[in-house]
């Protein structure tokens, strides 16, 4: 077990290095370079000034050396400074990280709370009206764009339930725990819809599979109450693939948060990245993307490790 966890953890390192390389390369994709972007607003600059700035950013070095230097500074906690504000980037990122995490976590809780019971009901009442309704709900959830759902929720609340829930802005849990929860409820719901649909479909098909197994038949044959058959025997096994998919879906939630934060004016990493893109503040974009992607990789690692504990069927060597 420990060997497995160690090996799984080591596997993350090359992926993280790869992530940093992709994010590094992205900056080289821009037409011209960072110096052109900075000087774009200043008008024309003398060749000496250009050369001087390129030297400051290390752009006169060959690409591999630039990457190594960049990576080394990242590892020492230096994420550079914003091109626009000249402020160090890391404190801004760290201040915004909890908002995005809280949003993604709340969206995951909302999805699981809705998806698992609906999926179970749908599988137990297979081929009935209830099942059909749940399946249609699942297909709709997959097909509704989260930004549109968010707009509709804002419209609904502002027209008919004014003041019931905040439709923009964020309250920190340090200030007001319940208020913080309320401020993210609508965004979390908009973000959760597609995720809920996927987890619901997964729960349903996984339950159908498990209910066919012989141990379920055995449990029923020995006269166990149906409720116990479902929850103790079927659901516990059926949830294993659901948990895996839920872990993978964290990536979707972190990505979708970028869009949702924008709509609800939440001060998370997503709005940081989007502002960075619109202001062409590339070091900020890099840092934001790196943190979001790395969070996703680490969550998957955590899910895998959790898995090793939870699932006795799989032998990890």
């Amino acid at each position, binding site marked *: 077990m420990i060997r*497995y966890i160690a090996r*799984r953890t080591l*596997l993350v390192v*090359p*992926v993280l290095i*790869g*992530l940093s*390389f*992709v994010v590094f390369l*992205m*900056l080289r*994709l*821009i*037409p011209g370079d960072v110096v052109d972007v900075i000087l774009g607003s200043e008008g024309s600059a003398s060749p000496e000034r250009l050369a001087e700035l390129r030297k400051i950013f290390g752009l006169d070095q060959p690409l591999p050396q630039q990457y190594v230097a960049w990576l080394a500074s990242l590892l020492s906690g230096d994420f550079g400074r914003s091109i626009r504000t000249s402020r160090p980037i890391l404190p801004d990122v760290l201040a915004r990280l909890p908002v995005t995490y809280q949003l993604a976590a709340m969206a995951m809780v909302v999805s699981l709370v809705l998806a698992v019971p609906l999926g179970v009901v749908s599988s137990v009442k*297979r081929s009935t009206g209830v099942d059909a309704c749940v*399946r249609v709900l699942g*297909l*709709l959830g*997959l*097909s509704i*764009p*989260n*930004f*549109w759902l968010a*707009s*509709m929720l*804002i*419209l609904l609340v*502002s027209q008919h339930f004014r003041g019931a829930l905040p439709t923009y802005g964020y309250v920190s849990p340090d200030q007001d725990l319940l208020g913080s929860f309320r401020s993210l409820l609508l965004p979390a719901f908009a973000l959760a819809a*597609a995720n809920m649909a996927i987890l619901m479909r997964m729960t*349903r*098909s996984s339950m*159908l599979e498990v209910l066919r197994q012989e141990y379920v038949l055995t449990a029923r044959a020995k006269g166990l109450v149906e409720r116990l058959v479902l929850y103790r025997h079927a659901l516990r096994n059926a949830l294993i693939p659901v948990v*895996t*998919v839920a*872990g*993978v*879906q964290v*990536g*979707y939630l*972190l*990505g*979708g948060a*970028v*869009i949702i934060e924008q709509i609800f004016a939440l001060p998370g990493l997503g709005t940081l*990245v989007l502002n*960075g*893109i619109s202001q062409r503040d*590339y070091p900020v974009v890099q840092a934001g*993307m790196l943190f*979001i*992607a790395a969070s*996703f*990789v680490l969550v*998957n*690692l955590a*899910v*895998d490790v959790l*898995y090793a504990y939870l699932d006795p069927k799989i032998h*990890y060597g």
Partner: protein
Amino acid sequence: MVSAANLPAAAERTRVAVIAIAPRRGQVWRRLVHNQLAVAGALMLSAVILAAIFAPQLAPLDPLEMNPTHLLEAPSQSHWLGTDEFGRDILSRVIWGARISLYVGGIAVTIAVGAGVSLGLVSGYYGGLLDELIARVLDVVFAFPSILLALGIVGALGPGLTNTMLAIGIVYTPVYARLTRGTTLSIRQREFVAAATLSGANDLRILRRHILPNVAAPLIVQTSLSLSLAILAEASLSFLGLGTQPPDPSWGTMVNTGQRLIELSPWPVVFPGLAIIVAVLGFNLLGDGIRDAFDPRLAA
């Protein structure tokens, strides 16, 4: 070993159908037309495709024509879906939007299929170091939430239609590569491939004539699902102002501009959103239907 590295990076992308046995074609077709949901999906898609092809004939008005005397009107006789903040006819814009949506989605998925299938075939057929290298690169692409990666690429290359297609294409390449690689690996072991090799066929011929046709079934299913995701991705990027640029009538752009005035009039947001849902739902229903038709054991 079960590990997240082996799983596709998001369950949106995990809806990969692995189809073991290729059934006969007529049988698949019969199952498909008897599946009501799949037929409904096909009908929805037909409507969207027809709107895209015949947009100039179907749209009652010029989608770009402004009319300052009819701003933000509710649906009426003269404007069935109302007008937007410039007095443009929403129905005409939604119809033209189908063209942009299908065009961007189609090209993006073509890029993903082309690149992904090539990588997967090479990876699965030759194996070894090359396979390992491709797998590691794909792991990294998978490690990004898809919309975030697309956002980053478009952010770096600059907003616009072409870069949006390219970005979405890159993001969905790994799913095709993995799908093709997996199927190629299992088919490479089969006797007919050995027979072809013995009879002197070269690698290219074996890949094209013997392996690719067997990869086709899961690819068709995946393509339908990917098109739904690509349309959503284009809409999302355009919503963020990075995809299709105004005044072009992209559904995502329409929701974006309409959303600022939603308290005055919801229609410029409502209808383009419904159009996105119809297109995406159509591809999802059809994709599910084709998968079930190829392999009824997966059907619920």
